[in-house]
C-alpha cells in the first residue's frame, strides 16, 4: 500500500483507524459521571494530540535517526505560527496557503540554523540549537516587537513583526486581500478550508455520551496521517539508512567517502519543516501566536514526548505526544477538592496526609510531575513506551513458549 511493506502498511492503517475513531475512543465515560474528567474526546485536546504528534514525528526524524539532540526545535514551531498568522492577516483565512508559508519559512529558518549548528556535533550541537532558540525567543519577545519606521496607515506593524509579549493577533483592520476583512456581522473571520470553518463541530448524543466531531481535528488528523506516512517513507528510504549510519558510526561513514553533512542538513530542515507545519496548524486552530511557543521549555517538551514514546521508532513519538498532552490536561485540572473526594474512603487523618503528599504534584505542580516523569523515563526506560511494551510482550511470549535464548542478531560494529 502506497509503497509500504505489509508491516508498515498495517501500522499506518492502525494509526489511521485510531485517529478517525478518536472522538469515540477518547470519550469512554458518560457525560456527568465522576470519571468524565478523564475524557479527552473534546476537539481542543484532540487537536493538540495530533499537532504535537506532528511536531514529535518531525523531531524524531532528526533525533531518532541521526542521534543529534536539538534543544531548540520550538523555534521552528514559533516561526511556523508567526508565518501562518501573517498569511491570515495579509491574504485570507484559508489554511492551506498559511500552512504552505509556515512550512517554507520554517524550512528556510532551519537551513540557516542548521548550517551553523551542524558544524559541531554532540553536546555542542545541543547547546548551539538551544542558544539559537533562545535568541529567536528574545527577538520575538522584544526586538521584533518594536514599531518599524515609516508611515503605516493600517497599523499592521504597530507592534512589530511578532507583537511581543501579547503575541500576534488578528484585527479587523488587516488587509486580507483575498478574503474579507470582517464577517457580515462585523466579527473577526475564522480560519477555514475553502469555507469549512476550522472550529465548526457537530455533536452526536448517544445515550449519556456526547461525541464531538470537529472539522479542525479531522483536518489536523489528516495532515498528521500524511506526515506520518512521509516519516515511514523516510525511515525506510536509502536516505534514512544514511541518517541511521550517522548515528551508529559517523567516522566510518566518513571513511567510506560519504560526506554526512548534506544529509544531516536535509534531516534537520525536514524536521524543522515538520515543526513549522505543527506551528502553522496551531495558529490555524486558534489564530494567535506568541513568543512563549519558542521558549526552551517548549523544546524540552518535544524531546520528552519523543523519548517517552520511544526514540527512533515510528509510532513512539505519536504515543509520547498523546501521553504527555493527556497527562498535562488531566493532571493540571485536578485540584485538592477532587483529591479529597477520591480519598474520602480513608479515615480523616490519613486522607489529609495522602492529599498533602499528592498535592504538590497536581494542578499548578504539573511541571514537577513532568520533570519526574522525564527523569524516570531517561533512567529506567531509555527506549520509551515502545520498548516497555516490547519487554512486556517478550515476557509473556517467553512464558508461553519457554524458548531458548536466540542468538543475538545485532550487526557487528
Amino acid at each position, binding site marked *: 500500500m502506497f509503497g509500504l511493506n505489509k508491516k508498515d502498511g498495517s501500522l499506518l492503517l492502525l494509526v489511521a483507524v485510531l485517529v478517525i475513531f478518536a472522538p469515540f475512543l477518547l470519550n469512554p465515560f458518560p457525560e456527568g459521571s465522576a470519571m468524565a474528567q478523564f475524557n479527552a474526546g473534546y476537539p481542543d485536546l484532540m487537536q493538540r494530540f495530533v499537532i504535537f504528534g506532528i511536531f514529535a514525528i518531525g523531531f524524531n526524524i532528526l533525533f531518532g535517526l541521526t542521534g543529534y539532540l536539538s534543544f531548540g526545535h520550538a523555534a521552528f514551531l514559533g516561526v511556523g505560527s508567526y508565518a501562518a498568522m501573517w498569511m491570515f492577516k495579509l491574504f485570507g483565512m484559508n489554511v492551506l496557503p498559511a500552512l504552505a508559508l509556515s512550512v517554507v519559512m520554517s524550512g528556510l529558518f532551519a537551513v540557516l540554523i542548521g548550517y551553523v549548528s551542524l558544524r559541531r556535533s554532540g553536546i555542542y550541537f545541543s547547546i548551539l540549537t538551544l542558544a539559537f532558540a533562545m535568541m529567536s525567543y528574545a527577538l520575538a*519577545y522584544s526586538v521584533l516587537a518594536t514599531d518599524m519606521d515609516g508611515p503605516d496607515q493600517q497599523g499592521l506593524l504597530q507592534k512589530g513583526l511578532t507583537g511581543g509579549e501579547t503575541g500576534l493577533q488578528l484585527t479587523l483592520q488587516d488587509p486580507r486581500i483575498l478574503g474579507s476583512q470582517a464577517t457580515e456581522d462585523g466579527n473577526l473571520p475564522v480560519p477555514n478550508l475553502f469555507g469549512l470553518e476550522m472550529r465548526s463541530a457537530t455533536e452526536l448524543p448517544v445515550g449519556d455520551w456526547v461525541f464531538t466531531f470537529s472539522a479542525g481535528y479531522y483536518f489536523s488528523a489528516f495532515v498528521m496521517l500524511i506526515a506520518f506516512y512521509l516519516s515511514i517513507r523516510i525511515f525506510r528510504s536509502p536516505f534514512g539508512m544514511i541518517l541511521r549510519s550517522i548515528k551508529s558510526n559517523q567516522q566510518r561513514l566518513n571513511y567510506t567517502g560519504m560526506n554526512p553533512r548534506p544529509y544531516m542538513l536535509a534531516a534537520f530542515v525536514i524536521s524543522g519543516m515538520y515543526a513549522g507545519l505543527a506551528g502553522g496548524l496551531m495558529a490555524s486552530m486558534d489564530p494567535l501566536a506568541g513568543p512563549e511557543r519558542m521558549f526552551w521549555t517548549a523544546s524540552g517538551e518535544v524531546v520528552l514526548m519523543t523519548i517517552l514514546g520511544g526514540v527512533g521508532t515510528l509510532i513512539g513519538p505519536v504515543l509520547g505526544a498523546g501521553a504527555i498532552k493527556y497527562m498535562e490536561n488531566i493532571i493540571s485540572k485536578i485540584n485538592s477538592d477532587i483529591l479529597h473526594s477520591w480519598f474520602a474512603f480513608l479515615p480523616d487523618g490519613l486522607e489529609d496526609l495522602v492529599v498533602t503528599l499528592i498535592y504538590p504534584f497536581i494542578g499548578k505542580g504539573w511541571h514537577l510531575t513532568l520533570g519526574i516523569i522525564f527523569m524516570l523515563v531517561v533512567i529506567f526506560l*531509555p527506549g520509551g513506551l515502545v520498548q516497555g511494551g516490547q519487554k512486556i510482550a517478550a515476557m509473556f511470549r517467553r512464558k508461553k513458549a519457554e524458548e531458548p535464548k536466540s542468538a543475538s542478531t545485532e550487526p557487528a560494529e
Partner: protein
Amino acid sequence: MDAIILQILNGLDKGSAYALIALGLTLIFGTLGVVNFAHGALFMIGAFCAVTLSRILNLSHEVAVPGETDFLGNPLMRDVPYMYDIFGEATGAAIIDWSVPLAILLAIPVMILVGVIMERGLIKHFYKRPHADQILVTFGLAIVLQEIIKYYYGANPIPTPAPEAFIGSFDFGALIGFEPGTIIYPYWRLVYFAFAALIIGAVFAFLQFTTFGMVVRAGMADRETVGLLGINIDKRFTIMFGLAAAVAGLAGVMYSPITSPNYHMGMDFLVLSFVVVVVGGMGSLPGAVLAGFLLGILESFASMREVLEILPGLNQIIIYLVAIVILLTRPRGLMGRKGVMED
C-alpha cells in the same frame, strides 16, 4: 573614555556570574565528562540559601512594649527577632543586616552536600550512557529542583538586600582621576567582582598547588592511568563535583542582592553559561573564566543607549551572535584543547 570604563565595570558583575557558573560547568565536564544541565539550578539554590538564612535570622516573636498601648487599650505588641534576644540588640541587628554574606557559611556545606548527593545518587549512573542521556536526565533534574523551589518559595522574586554598608554607589571616576560624577558604581557590584576573583583564584590555586589538585588534574588528562596507579580517582572527582556545586552556589548567594532570587533565574543563567563555556572552549578552565568576563562586558557595551539607537535589541542577542561567529571561525572556542569532546 569614562563611558568605556563605566561599561566595562557594568559588565563585570554579570561577567563574574557567568565566569563562576561556567567554571563549575567546565570543572564537571573536564573531570567527569558530564554535561550538567542542572548547574543553573545549583546557582539558584545558592541564591535561595541567602533567602532562607535571611528568613531564619528574621524569625521573631511578639513582645509587649512597656508603657504603650494601641487605640483599643491593649498593650502594644512589637516583633522582636530572636537574634536580638541571643546577641543583644546591636549585634543582632548587625547579624540580620549581614545575612547575605553570612549565607556563604550556610551555602558551602549545603551546596557540597547537594552536589555530592547529585553525583552519587544520579549522575554516577550516567557516565557510560550517551551524552544525550546525560543532558536529558540533568535537564529533568533541573526542572524538578526548580519546581520544588517554586513550590516552597512561590513564583515571585524575593528581594534580598545587601548589608547597609554596601547599599548605594560611590564615585569610582574620582578615585582614578576623572571628573567627579562621571563614573558612579554601586558598592555591591564591586564586592561581587572581588568575591568572584577570590573564588576563581582559590579554585585555580587549589588545582595548581595542592596534591589533591594535582591528582585531579592528572585524572582530567588521563583518568585510566591515574586509576591504574592505585588512586581512587572516582572519590576525588565526586569531591570536585561538590566543589563545582559550591562555586555555583556561592555565585548565587552573592548575586541575590543584584537580582532578587526567583525560581527560574538558574535557567536564565544556564543557557548563557553554556554559550560561555562553548566560546571559552570546552574543558578549558581559563577559557571559561576569560569568556565569561568577555561576554559580560560585551553585553554591557551592547546595552548602551547609543548602540541601542542604531541596533535595537542588540543586548538581547549579542552573546549568541558572538558565539556563532567564534564557532564558525574557531570551532574549538577561544582556548579549547584538541581532542576534547571531538566525537
